């Protein structure tokens, strides 16, 4: 355990020194600043026009949930960028550069090394996502006085989603070179996003094939289901036409998280951990 903590501390220090961390932080500051300006302008606009009343739509709920949903998507995307760049070369990439062997030879063991790397990446990305989500929620409340029905659940879902991406990337790093792994994980992220959009279209047009594709993708890539579940819980108290519109949500649509989502998320992470452990133990360095 102490070996894993030492590796986690080492990986944390390493991650703070990577340029990608600075880039993501700068992008985040820029995003939050733009988000604040945009949210303020949007809420000011609906206050002035109050167009939704004619269609029996709660303008404030629609604007707030759509804006925060977009912020959640951006947060998940930036969190994934961070997760991928912190882990994409953790095994094969570092082994090819000669960084890994001096560590693996030490008696701490390969499992502890993987655990340390994962703990550091999950910690950094989880804190980052939680922080950005909290900031976006506060900005939304400040700009329009709208607060999500469940402010905690969506944030927890995003944190879990980005931890899954970090675990996928760490597993991929055992088999693939850093560049190939980065491309593969981003493609998986994009596939999850595309499946969510297909599901949204399937729901709107009532096409079972599209709905099935989206459902299978949600099981295979649960970060997408966690994101959709988070979107859904933003407006769990909405009713009528407002509820129908906000369920469409941005980038994938809101879907209520079933009772199996969280157990499956835990099992999924455990499966990734087991696969990574076996694969790393068998890998020649």
């Amino acid at each position, binding site marked *: 355990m102490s070996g894993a903590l030492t*590796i986690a501390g080492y990986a944390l220090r390493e991650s703070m020194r990577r340029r990608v961390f600075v880039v993501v932080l700068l992008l985040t500051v820029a995003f939050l600043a733009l988000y604040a300006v945009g949210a303020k302008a949007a809420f000011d606009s609906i206050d002035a026009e109050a167009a939704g009343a004619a269609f029996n739509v709660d303008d404030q709920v629609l604007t707030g949930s759509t804006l925060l949903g977009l912020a959640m998507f951006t947060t998940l995307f930036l969190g994934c960028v961070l997760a991928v760049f912190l882990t994409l070369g953790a095994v094969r990439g570092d082994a090819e550069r000669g960084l890994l062997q001096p560590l693996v030879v030490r008696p701490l063991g390969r499992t502890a090394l993987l655990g340390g790397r994962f703990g550091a990446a999950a910690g950094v990305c989880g804190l980052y996502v939680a922080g950005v989500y909290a900031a976006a929620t506060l900005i939304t409340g400040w700009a329009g006085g709208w607060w999500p029905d469940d402010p905690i659940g969506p944030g927890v879902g995003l944190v879990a989603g980005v931890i899954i991406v970090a675990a996928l990337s760490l597993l991929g790093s055992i088999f693939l070179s850093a560049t190939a792994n980065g491309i593969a994980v981003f493609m998986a992220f994009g596939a999850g996003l595309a499946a969510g959009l297909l599901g949204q279209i399937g729901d709107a047009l009532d096409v079972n094939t599209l709905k099935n594709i989206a459902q299978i993708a949600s099981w295979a890539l649960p970060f997408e289901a966690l994101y959709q579940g988070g979107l859904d819980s933003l407006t769990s108290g909405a009713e009528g036409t407002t509820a129908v519109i906000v369920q469409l949500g941005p980038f994938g649509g809101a879907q209520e998280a079933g009772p199996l989502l969280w157990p499956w998320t835990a099992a999924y992470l455990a499966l990734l951990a087991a696969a990574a452990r076996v694969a790393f133990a068998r890998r020649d360095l």
Partner: protein
Amino acid sequence: MSAAFECRELSKRYGGTVALGGVDLDVRAGELVGLLGPNGAGKSTLVKIACGLVRPTGGAAEVAGEPAGSGDARAAIGYLAELFRFPEWLRADELLSLHQRLAGSRGGADERRELLELVQLSDASGTRVGAMSKGMQQRLGIAQALIGNPRLLMLDEPTSALDPVGRRIVRDLLLELKRRGVAVLLNSHLLSEVERVCDRVAILVGGRVVARGSPAELAQTRGVEVELDGGVRQYPDATREQVPEIVAQLVAAGEQVYGVRVLSSTLEETYLEAVEAAS
């Protein structure tokens, strides 16, 4: 006491390529053993199996009596890879501290100071790895490998980036470690270095040991040269023990003998012959 390192019939295949084809080797405490061989001979693979970085296909390898790759075996090893790199943002002292924690060493600051002195980097303890020359990094790598007083030190081309002064430092260091009872497996292309410091040498070609012995044993006799009135006469099959008889015969035959030289091959010549014969 078990050997610091021992392997029997050790083999490794990468797909259809045989990296090691049944190697027997042992390194005893306080012994310095050199591994020689051309590129692709299997030297690094052998060292990596001993360190638990590569899994053997067949045979067995033990470090300090424990199966190679096990936690106890790794705890007894110090290793410097041929192609190694340390994080450039770490200072020398921080790097050693990190490896102390990973190795479970309780030597603290005293051990770090002593190791940096040993590799003559005392002044560089606060220097970042990225600001060090390749030679300094290599010496720091040796210091890192010595953390926790390993029973067996595995050095894969430890002098490849060193200037003559750096090589001298490493050579003296190896002799000092030998005096302290540390076993060393030295993998090197620098035959002169190996000849100077190693107790025994194993020559690997194509994944097999084709010659082994002390540098003196490997340096075979190549006959006798006798300087006479009419020039130098050679006896290519003669040994050192036959010299008195040869000289007596020549004197009896009326020759004036001005000098006698027993010819022996250098390790380099033996190495080249072994490699040529094996391939």
